[in-house]
């Protein structure tokens, strides 16, 4: 099949519609092909670029697949111990209230070891944004069961499928923290289709803008795929996610306080 010839008429700077944001560093992201982490990173940095707040934003990376987020996000970043990003963010925001502060965390980080930090940062109503990528598995360490692993879903530490009787149900941490008065905006999004990405970007933009209102914490969950952990191709994983993750983790705004 012949390589398609680009039309020089169209490919000109003045005709540019979309390009990779400079707010991402030139580094190639280490994420597996088709992983939602890359998309989510990109959206956050596009929001920061559009708001023009790169000079006033401090991001906090977790331990997990996105532990190297600071290699990709071209802003000042801190590397938190596993599960502790909300604590770091609490201190940064209280010490520098005029800065935009966000944490970027996975499900193991936020809903297992970091549960207390998550709940208490939300309960204190810290004026920060938490971006929570939920792919139902521990990706970086090779696909172990996570707090959000679905019933009967296989992972390396539940090779016969998650057994509710012994390991409990997948944890709906987002619905949990939405109950806390300290959270002002809680939403669950995805990044597997253009429409979903646009919606997530709007949500993240809103979550950042909320920080100016000083009315509490904004929490954006992004349900995402884990191709290596789920042992599927990216497109299969996205379809599986729609069939299996979305029914248990329904998308949409859960709480919106103006």
């Amino acid at each position: 099949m012949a390589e398609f010839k680009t039309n020089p008429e169209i490919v000109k700077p003045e005709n540019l519609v979309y390009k990779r944001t400079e707010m991402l560093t030139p580094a190639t992201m280490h994420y597996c092909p088709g992983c939602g982490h890359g998309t989510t990173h990109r959206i956050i940095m596009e929001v920061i670029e559009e708001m023009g707040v790169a000079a006033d934003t401090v991001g906090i990376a977790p331990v997990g697949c996105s532990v190297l987020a600071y290699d990709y996000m071209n802003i000042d970043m801190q590397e938190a111990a596993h599960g502790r990003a909300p604590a770091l963010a609490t201190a940064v925001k209280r010490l520098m209230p005029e800065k935009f502060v966000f944490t970027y965390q996975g499900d193991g980080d936020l809903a297992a070891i970091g549960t207390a930090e998550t709940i208490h940062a939300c309960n204190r109503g810290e004026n920060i944004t938490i971006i929570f990528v939920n792919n139902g598995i521990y990706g970086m360490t090779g696909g172990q069961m996570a707090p959000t692993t679905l019933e009967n879903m296989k992972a390396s530490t539940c090779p016969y499928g998650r057994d509710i009787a012994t390991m409990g149900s997948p944890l709906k941490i987002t619905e949990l923290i939405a109950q806390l008065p300290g959270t002002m905006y809680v939403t669950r999004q995805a990044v597997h289709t253009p429409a979903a990405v646009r919606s997530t970007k709007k949500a993240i933009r809103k979550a950042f803008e909320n920080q100016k209102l000083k009315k509490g914490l904004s929490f954006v969950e992004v349900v995402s795929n884990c191709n290596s952990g789920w042992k599927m191709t990216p497109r299969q994983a996205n379809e599986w996610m729609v069939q299996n993750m979305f029914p248990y983790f329904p998308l949409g705004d859960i709480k919106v306080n103006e």
Partner: protein
Amino acid sequence: MKELRLMKGNEAFAEAAIRAGADGYFGYPITPQSEVMEYLMAQKTEERTGMVTLQAESEIAAINMVYGGACCGKRVLTSSSSPGISLKQEGISYIAGAELPCVILNCVRGGPGLGTIQPSQSDYFQSTKGGGHGDYRLIVLAPASVQEMADFASLGFDLAFKYRNPVLILADGAIGQVMEKVELQPQQPRLTMDEIKKNTPWATVGRANGRERNFVTSLDLDSLRMEKHNHDLQAKYRQIEENEMRYEALQCDDADYIFVAYGTSSRLCQKAIQLAREEGIKVGLLRPITLFPFPKKPLEDLSKRVKGMLVVELSMGQMIEDVRLSVHDKIKVEHFGRAGGMIPSPHDIVDALKKQIIGG
């Protein structure tokens, strides 16, 4: 103009931290040091100097708040007691690995486990040999009075920023709870953003006017680079050993025997010296003020002209290992101490000197 007050050790430490221009305190209640946070809250530090005082949901959260604040080049501190300090060890290792400045107070209580709430010195190993993972050292200051609790708050910040290293203040329940006269420094202004950008250009305060992004991490998956980082850390610790070793020698010049003791134990030894000398036993005290860097040389020098050393610790004997290492077994070195929160009397110490060193 310095101010004279009568205060509890924990409160003097808190007040001195405010006056040293602290930006943030993150703590959690645990006996015998809860007064630090209680005092700071009562002082409404946010109004007084703009200093943030926050009670976290756990000691783990608190030390990670310290980490976050330290990444921003701010003067941040926390305080806790033994079990709480154990919870903080991972965070402290991260802070040491990422080379961040901060001050941590440990009001040691009897252990192990939930232990007791009475004073102890059984966290020596944890404090000086690194309680967390990896090759790292804390600068460890051991106050023996309420005055030193106050002085070491500001000294702690100075050393922490000078070396970009966590500083541990190793007190005990007695030092924290006892009330004594204390001279307080005048209020020092908190750091401005410009000072932070100048003094700590690595701080994550927002990537202004096009500078390269700053990121603070203790992670490096490249082993060769990680090894180099370890060598750099060790070089720093050698520098700290060279420049920051502090100790006090009392009546050692004519001494035949030496007590080696820090904190509360050293106060008991001062009385024991008087009692022993009344019986004609010439004994002196070498009091380490920094436990890291440990006063090896002074001990080695003393070992050349004394017959024996009694290491007095409120524990089953931990610092004694460092004393023995310092004197290379040339003379008799024995441990005496009580544990579980028990405190020996000066008489007990004199008896121990006679039995274990002189009579032995």
